[in-house]
């Protein structure tokens, strides 16, 4: 009987990567000096299950590599080895190597043998068993010369509950040896009345007689029950000392360690195609579907009705509104299945900050809050890179060197706060540092140098800070490998915009900066306001609408003869004639005949002129890019109730379009004047 193991690979990788994350965070805690036995145990267990799994699936390279890590961890666990910074560093390095190996196996690419060998040597160095090859070969031979082995196998009482069968193990041992003598110790067997059939009370001593059995083979048999039994293996011939499990034929050890700069992490974003869902969410779905079925059967009764009376119509209406409610709830529950806690994106930061702070010689404390905040899986996967960039940025540019901090009267250790929370239908992620804050003058002079703003231009602080999101902008004096290439912040903004979100920065000189990212809860559904312009129907996201109003002619002001602004209470808001920008023939071009919809995006407000407001509904967002391409000013399309397509307006993009439009008309006027 053969089982196709391939089908479990996905799960194995998923679990292994989870295990690696657990190991990583555990190791980071260790490094901070919190030596906690439970923590070491957790790390050990993760390593152990990765080893077990990879052995089962035949990824022997991974199993071999993990084995050494495990040995080292085991020593730490038993208190035989002091937990030191250097050991933790090496273990962290091995976590990286392991992750790369698993990535390589999953993607079917080459394993970076050199980095594996290098780390193996480092671990073995610590284990103090950097045996020369010749030695290990001779030892191997002497071992093979042994006549056999005595195996003391004392399983824990609940070994059978984990699905292991002691008899099978012994049978497997038997297949190794030429001759087997098994002695069973049933001293602890209770009275029949007290006997639990699922418990294992016996222990065994097994003499394996045969010339070519290696200790490794025996351990292999017990690989799955390693931590569920007391196992002692002795050579039969001479009373050999306990031989640790470390000795293995590892030909890679012979290679001299080569120093190479290897990428610490695979650059490929691990966008997994499967999702782990909390069982309660699934139950909720099943309940909703149940309700839906009941409503449906109630409604279907009306189909059999011969004629409709007033009363049946009333009931039909009730039923339909119930159906609507259930459909909406079902939709929300389905959406919730896609929601995952943001900790998946946050968990890499302790490590990142740890690595970077030593690179920059800065002392940094990372505070993470709101890890439980849930957001859409797609958003979660795509927000990772922009977040990394922002955190790196805060670390590199924001937090000052310890000396400078002391000079400024702050504590030596800088603080970076990473938080996530809900706010008005949005997810907000904040990256806050207590560093020097953005340098306004430096940004302005840089912007002028790059020609992003004109020489004599004056602008409010917020707009100055906003300049850092412009393409080609970087104020770093030295280009480091972390930041300063000027491709950072504009990409961050673009990525976040692609997710339908926005990013802004606030900064106080000497006190630090706050980057705020706002993201929609989900990418799939949007509350839309339908508006009519000429024959076309467009959709505005309700969330960006501040108010809709009828035009009072006296409030319209023309600025410089071209741009129109509307005075709304104390504000002047530019009027955007959508038909002009989108080239549509409107019902009327007179502002009096239509409506203004005041919308806001990224702190900017505009008043969009439309012919009519048509109603609000939830719309399912479809991408235009699937079959076509991105259109400026549009975030997607949706299908209305009558089957036609309506386009969804991207407010931030529309503001950009409007500003470009204005700029080009100014240029053309200037051109005409010259």
């Amino acid at each position, binding site marked *: 009987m053969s089982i196709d193991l391939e089908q479990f690979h996905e799960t194995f990788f998923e679990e292994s990567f989870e295990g690696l994350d657990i190991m990583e965070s555990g190791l980071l805690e260790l490094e901070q000096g919190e030596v906690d036995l439970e923590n070491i145990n957790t790390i050990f267990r993760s390593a152990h299950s990765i080893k077990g799994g990879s052995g089962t699936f035949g990824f022997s390279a991974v199993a071999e590599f993990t084995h050494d890590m495990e040995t080292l961890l085991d020593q730490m666990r038993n208190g035989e080895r002091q937990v030191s910074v250097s050991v933790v560093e090496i273990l962290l390095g091995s976590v990286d190597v392991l992750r790369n190996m698993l990535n390589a196996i999953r993607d079917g690419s080459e394993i970076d043998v050199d980095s594996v060998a290098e780390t193996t040597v480092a671990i073995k160095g610590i284990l103090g068993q950097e045996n020369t090859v010749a030695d290990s070969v001779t030892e191997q031979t002497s071992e093979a010369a042994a006549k056999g082995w005595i195996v003391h196998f004392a399983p824990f009482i609940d070994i059978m509950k984990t699905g292991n069968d002691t008899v099978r193990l012994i049978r497997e041992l038997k297949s190794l040896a030429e001759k087997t003598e098994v002695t069973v110790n049933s001293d602890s067997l209770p009275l029949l009345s007290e006997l639990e059939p699922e418990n294992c009370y016996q222990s065994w001593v097994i003499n394996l007689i045969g010339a070519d059995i290696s200790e490794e083979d025996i351990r292999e048999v017990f690989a799955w029950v390693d931590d569920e039994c007391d196992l002692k293996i002795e050579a039969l011939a001479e009373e050999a000392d306990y031989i640790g499990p470390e000795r293995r034929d590892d030909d890679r050890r012979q290679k001299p360690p080569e120093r190479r700069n290897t990428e610490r992490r695979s650059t490929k974003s691990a966008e997994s195609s499967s999702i782990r869902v909390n069982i309660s969410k699934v139950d909720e779905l099943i309940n909703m579907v149940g309700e839906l079925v009941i409503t449906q059967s109630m409604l279907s009764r009306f189909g059999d009705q011969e004629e409709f009376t007033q009363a049946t119509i009333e009931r039909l209406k009730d039923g339909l509104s119930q159906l609507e409610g259930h459909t909406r709830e079902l939709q929300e529950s389905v959406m919730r299945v896609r929601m995952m806690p943001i900790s998946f994106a946050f968990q890499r930061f302790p490590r990142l900050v740890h690595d970077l702070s030593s690179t920059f010689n800065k002392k940094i404390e990372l505070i993470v809050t709101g890890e439980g905040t849930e957001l859409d899986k797609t958003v979660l996967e795509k927000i990772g890179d922009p977040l990394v960039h922002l955190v790196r940025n805060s670390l590199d540019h924001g937090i000052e060197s310890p000396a400078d901090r002391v000079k400024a009267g702050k504590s030596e250790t800088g603080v970076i706060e990473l938080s996530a929370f809900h706010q008005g239908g949005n997810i907000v992620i904040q990256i806050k540092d207590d560093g020097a804050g953005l340098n306004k003058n430096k940004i302005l002079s840089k912007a002028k140098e790059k020609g992003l703003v004109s020489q004599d231009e004056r602008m409010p602080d917020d707009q100055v800070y906003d300049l850092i999101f412009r393409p080609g902008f970087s104020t770093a004096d030295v280009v480091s490998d972390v930041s300063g290439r000027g491709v950072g912040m504009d990409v961050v903004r673009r990525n976040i915009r692609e997710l339908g979100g926005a990013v802004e920065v606030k900064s106080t000189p000497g006190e630090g900066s706050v980057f705020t990212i706002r993201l929609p809860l989900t990418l799939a559904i949007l509350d839309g306001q339908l508006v009519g312009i000429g024959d076309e129907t467009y959709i505005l996201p309700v969330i960006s609408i501040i108010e809709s109003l009828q035009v009072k002619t006296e409030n319209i002001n023309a600025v410089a003869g071209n741009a129109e602004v509307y005075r709304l209470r104390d504000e002047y808001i530019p009027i955007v004639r959508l038909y002009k920008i989108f080239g549509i023939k409107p019902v009327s071009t007179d502002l009096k005949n239509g409506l203004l919809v005041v919308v806001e995006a990224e702190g900017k407000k505009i008043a969009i002129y439309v012919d009519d407001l048509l109603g609000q509904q939830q719309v399912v967002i479809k991408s*235009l890019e699937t079959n*076509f*391409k991105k259109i400026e*000013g549009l975030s997607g*399309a949706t*299908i209305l109730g009558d089957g*036609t397509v309506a386009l969804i307006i991207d407010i931030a993009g529309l503001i950009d379009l409007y500003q470009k439009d204005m700029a080009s008309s100014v240029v053309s006027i200037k051109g005409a004047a010259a």
Partner: protein
Amino acid sequence: MSESAEELEAHESEKEFKELLTFFLAGEEYGVDILRVQEIKGWDSVTNIPNTPEYIRGVINIRGAIVPIIDMRLRFMLEMKEYDATTVVIILNVVSKGNADRIMGVVVDAVSDVYNVPVNDVKASPDFGTAVDTEFVTGLATIDEKMIIVLDIDHMLNAAELAVVDKMTE
């Protein structure tokens, strides 16, 4: 199509055949690989997309997918013709390198026929003046004394899309 079934089979063993769906555009007959045709439907109203070239008529909903519709006459700068009863939209699968397959529709004057053409009979097109750029032509096939221009739709529809990008970045 005077060959009997056996003869066809005999040919099949040595020749590779390709089925073409042909359509009319400004009096010329064009062919596309029939395996790429997803469906053929009558002209119906579309949703305009702002700031795109005129030949992109807009988008329609095909079973939940948003599909762009391209007018072939406008694409190749032919004289515009009123859409009538024979005007159809051919929905095509477009394969582009490095990207997922896309679905696009093209508006043509009328569909004509389906032909089985031996691949070797599709001759390279000479550089002469068909309405369509020779760049987008795979070759010419002769069927029943008629000439059919075989189109490279992948190239054509990716180029059409690229043209939009160019225009926007100008």
